[in-house]
């Protein structure tokens, strides 16, 4: 924890109820200050990002050449599973909650979050959830190896013993997310400054309000599905076991009923961040504020009726395929509204290209690429070809890495001077951006090609004809992975020393 011994003057200034924060570790354990908790969330997320990233590099190192070189296939499967779980639940979601903790009270004019004690609680259970999850790596039989989507019966009948630890880990992180979401909604609805009507709120606040409702709607369903797994494994029920009258396809329906809104949970706050940054660096007001709000709301509503596009190949009837295909394509409309609004905001603006803006621009371009490949996957007949190939991997990494992750980077560069009072090192920021931008594209763009050519995902070995693109992707992954060290160095430097911020 890089910031432990750093003196944060604002904590003393703004909290009249205490005589300064407690000393030592107690300060962080008992804190109810939204900024402290926000920082802890962000630091935790960064740690998880590095752990999940290391796992990604193990995957890419193994895939650098065809054949089995470095790891056992079973360990490879554990890596893909843990990489997915840690990045989704450990890196992206806590980072957005951390940003919400820092920014939402300030943006709505509240002194702190509405439920500060619960805020402390919702953060502090999170490290334990991931300790439980990560400890499974050292257990006999190994960590979960059934993919981050943990389809039954792979995750029930054929799962390693450690699956129970995975289930409790998911329960705890779900509880943490739900508490965080309740807190955010309560803060936004009850603690706005007088005169700030809902349609005057900054967009980051709006997107988080909607995201929080999504969290409350679907995280309990995730808790439900892992509870059903737990009962199938230990208590002899047969939710997903055909021998007992259950149905494994039911698992996929319940999982993706959670899973699809979940992917919007990971991208809506990113939309909010980008909608804050682009107007600043275009020196214009955001184009179409109201339409942005309505677009986010309609994306959130639509997210509940598209889940089966993840499972076109389970043998759905034609009517189902057609419905989920068109419902999915409908989401492109509000998403398109947002992209066009960002472009219109920049149109004839006096643009400048500081680090946050570079990340925001990369977000708009690369997220749109990810959106388009998503549209290709939405076409049910074509999806039979793309299903479970690297094309899917390319698609969701394009929306999550240069989408969610770049927006978090952009937000950090944009707001860090506000948090620490120190100006960021712009040269290092730009170096980090360009290395990341190039690295991400070298990593994920070739995956489109190998995917379309038929390379399946989640395999440690592959046919010879995919070798060139895979070694390219591995090189890109190492560039992207190690360029994050520049980011960490830059942030630590900024927190410790650094020029005083001007405005």
């Amino acid at each position, binding site marked *: 924890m890089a910031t432990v011994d750093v003196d944060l003057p604002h904590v003393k200034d703004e909290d009249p109820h205490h005589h300064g924060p407690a000393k030592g570790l107690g300060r962080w354990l008992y804190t109810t200050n939204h900024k402290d908790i926000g920082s802890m969330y962000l630091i935790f997320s960064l740690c998880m990002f590095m752990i999940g990233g290391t796992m990604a590099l193990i995957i890419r190192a193994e895939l650098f050449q065809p054949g089995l070189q470095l790891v056992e296939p079973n360990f490879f499967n554990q890596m893909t599973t843990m990489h997915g779980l840690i990045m989704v639940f450990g890196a992206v979601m806590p980072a957005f909650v951390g940003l919400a903790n820092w920014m939402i009270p300030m943006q709505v004019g509240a002194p702190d979050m509405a439920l500060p004690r619960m805020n402390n609680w919702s953060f502090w259970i999170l490290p334990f959830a991931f300790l439980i999850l990560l400890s499974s790596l050292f257990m006999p039989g190994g960590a979960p190896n059934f993919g981050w989507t943990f389809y039954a019966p792979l995750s029930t009948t054929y799962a390693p013993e450690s699956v129970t630890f995975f289930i409790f880990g998911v329960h705890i992180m779900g509880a943490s997310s739900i508490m965080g979401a309740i807190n955010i909604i309560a803060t936004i609805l009850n603690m706005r400054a007088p005169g700030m009507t809902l349609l005057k709120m900054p967009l980051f606040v709006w997107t988080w309000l909607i995201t929080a409702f999504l969290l409350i709607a679907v995280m309990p369903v995730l808790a439900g599905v892992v509870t059903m797994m737990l009962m199938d494994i230990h208590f002899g029920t047969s939710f997903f076991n*055909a021998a007992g009258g259950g149905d494994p396809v039911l698992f996929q329906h319940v999982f993706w009923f959670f899973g699809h809104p979940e992917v919007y949970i990971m991208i809506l706050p990113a939309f909010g961040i980008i909608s804050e940054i682009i107007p600043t660096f275009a020196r214009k007001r955001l184009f179409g504020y109201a339409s942005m709000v309505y677009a986010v709301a309609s994306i959130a509503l639509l997210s509940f009726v598209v889940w089966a596009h993840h499972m076109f190949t389970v043998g759905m009837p034609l009517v189902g395929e057609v419905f989920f295909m068109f419902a999915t394509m409908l989401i492109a409309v509000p998403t398109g509204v947002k992209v066009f609004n960002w472009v219109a905001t920049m149109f004839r603006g006096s643009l400048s290209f500081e680090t946050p803006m570079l990340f925001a621009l990369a977000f708009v371009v690369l997220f749109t690429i990810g959106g388009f490949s998503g549209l290709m996957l939405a076409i049910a007949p074509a999806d039979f070809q793309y299903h479970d190939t690297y094309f899917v991997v390319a698609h969701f990494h394009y929306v999550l890495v240069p989408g969610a992750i770049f927006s978090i980077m952009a937000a950090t560069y944009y707001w860090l001077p506000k948090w620490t009072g120190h100006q960021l090192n712009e040269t290092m920021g730009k170096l980090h951006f360009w290395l990341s931008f190039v690295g991400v594209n070298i990593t994920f763009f070739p995956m489109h090609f190998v995917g379309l050519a038929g390379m399946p995902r989640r395999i440690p070995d592959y046919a010879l004809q995919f070798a060139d693109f895979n070694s390219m992707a591995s090189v890109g992954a190492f560039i992207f992975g190690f360029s994050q060290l520049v980011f960490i160095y830059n942030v630590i430097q900024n927190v410790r020393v650094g020029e005083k911020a001007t405005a």
Partner: protein
Amino acid sequence: MAVQNEKQTKRLAVRLATAALVMFGFGFALVPLYDVFCDITGLNGKNFNQGPAQIVAVDDSRTVKVQFITVNPADMPWSFEPTERSIRVFLGEDRQTAFYAKNPTANWMVAQAVPSVTPSEAAPYLHKVNCFCFERQPLEAGADTEMPLLFVVDPELPEYISTITLSYALYDLTGEQKVTQVKPSKDKGRVSL
């Protein structure tokens, strides 16, 4: 502001927590909803019409091919085969066929077959008048048997369906049989333990 606001916040937090609890329940409610949905629509090949069918006329202008497939889960040692792999039937015609099962182990065992129909759209039109899958099948060590299936294909079967595949998976229920009483199942075509 403070007191008023705190009350409001508390009330809102309680409501939101209740909403989360309701959604947890909804996750479980999806299980019966899923079955109801499959029952109504016949998706998933789950809708099995049992008992005598109300079909009067045989449509001798149209036939459909019915294929039989058997599947043994990994831990099931029985041999289990259809006596006929594929038959052609007239719509509305009563037709009988049989499946052969043998218990090669040295122990008495009980099994039950779970059926599935492909394409799932055909499931509502396949009436089983009598099927071995309605009940459990015990077999002594080394014994074998032929298990009957009597079915009718509804003449209402959509034009575009020319082949129906009926698949049976045979599950070992010996362990269950020892510990639990056999409950007559009210579920259509589903085995409940």
